């Protein structure tokens, strides 16, 4: 210490520090508005040994759906804004909103529900909340799901996005190769019971079958449109084409042409949002639109396979089978 006055640094926040503080911040803001919130994925999964500890890409926090907007608004008052998204992005991602803040190095991914949990959002949240545990983040306790809840989140996350990130495949391998063999009969049974409460008996079926417990018969197609959509999406390798095909199929006839067109040929505004910093000349935008169209066409056969699997009531097992 010198004779100079004490200074408080304003240097950029390191990423790992920002993520840990963002988890604590989101939970505190939720608590302040009287909302329940659970830290999911990253630190929760690492705490339960479902993945190697590593720096998360963002802070994932699930807020009880009825108070979701209040928490978004409260974070908004602190400078956290929704990340701009494209029209197709808004159609595809309906379960969460990504918030960013210029002063922070990471985003907060605020969930109102979780993909693959087909029970009403409030019921699924309550099921996990009733089994919550505490985990220290930035010196304070934050609520996280218990082992069973974390296993279900991890399994659904990996099953849904196998082709999008090889890491998800590795995490499912770990879940099946390390976690499941270590579970006693009581825990396996509790996970199955939780899967029922979450509405995930069909979506997580390929994983649940590995628990070695008898499952109820699969739900037949046409009963639950969300389940049909999940089956098509997962079997279609989770590409935007698969998702958009399902959305267009499901949409009212009057909306189909517009949705189809915005998927095939995104507007200039959507292009800028989807490719920040990319060249914005007419030629550049056209080249990117054509590339996107080509990619969409290449993914079309998978998307069609997904629709067929969905119509047959099949839930994709390839990831579990190591294919």
């Amino acid at each position, binding site marked *: 210490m010198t004779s100079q006055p*004490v200074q*408080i*640094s304003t240097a950029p926040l390191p990423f790992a520090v920002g993520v840990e503080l963002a988890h*604590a*911040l989101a939970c505190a*803001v939720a608590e302040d508005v009287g909302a329940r919130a659970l830290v999911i994925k990253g630190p929760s999964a690492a705490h339960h040994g479902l993945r190697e500890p590593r720096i998360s890409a963002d802070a994932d926090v699930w807020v009880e759906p009825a108070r979701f907007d209040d928490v978004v608004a409260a974070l908004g008052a602190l400078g956290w804004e929704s990340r701009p998204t494209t029209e197709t992005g808004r159609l595809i991602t309906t379960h969460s909103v990504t918030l960013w803040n210029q002063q922070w190095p990471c985003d907060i991914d605020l969930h109102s529900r979780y993909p693959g949990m087909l029970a009403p959002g409030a019921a699924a949240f309550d099921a996990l909340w009733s089994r919550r545990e505490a985990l220290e983040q*930035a*010196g*304070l306790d934050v609520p996280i799901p218990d082992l069973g809840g974390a296993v279900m989140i991890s399994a659904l996350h990996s099953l849904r996005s196998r082709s999008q990130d090889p890491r998800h495949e590795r995490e499912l391998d770990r879940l099946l190769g390390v976690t499941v063999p270590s579970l006693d009969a009581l825990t396996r049974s509790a996970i199955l019971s939780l899967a029922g409460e979450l509405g995930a008996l069909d979506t997580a079926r390929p994983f649940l079958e590995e628990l070695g417990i008898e499952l109820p018969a699969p739900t037949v197609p046409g009963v639950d449109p969300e389940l049909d959509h999940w089956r098509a999406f997962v079997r279609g390798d989770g590409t935007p084409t698969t998702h958009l095909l399902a959305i267009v199929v499901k949409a009212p006839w009057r909306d189909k042409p517009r949705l189809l067109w915005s998927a095939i040929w995104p507007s200039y505004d959507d292009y800028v949002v989807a490719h920040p910093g990319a060249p914005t000349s007419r030629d550049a935008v056209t080249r990117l639109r054509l590339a996107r169209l080509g990619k969409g066409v290449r993914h079309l056969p998978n998307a069609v396979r997904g629709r067929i699997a969905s119509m047959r009531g099949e839930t994709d097992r390839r990831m579990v089978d190591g294919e």
Partner: protein
Amino acid sequence: MRRAPRIAEVATDEVTYVLGLGSLAAQPNPLQLAGPAAAIWSLIDGERSESDIVEVLLAELEAAEGAPTADELTAHVHAFVDQMVELGLAVR
């Protein structure tokens, strides 16, 4: 003197990052305390007074070259604590 309740804190070797979750309206982003600021902050433990903190720091800095005088140190600690209180991070 003590820290305010609900302080989120991450300490690295060099810097302590502090966010007052009970005073976000005053300071919505983390503060980064390094060097003297981190040293003073670490001594705010709910038991020591400001003069206790000055004494501890004086003892630590006794032989250091360019160390502040007792009066300078008292002024620095006082100014820092003022700032922490204003931001809702400490309570006198």
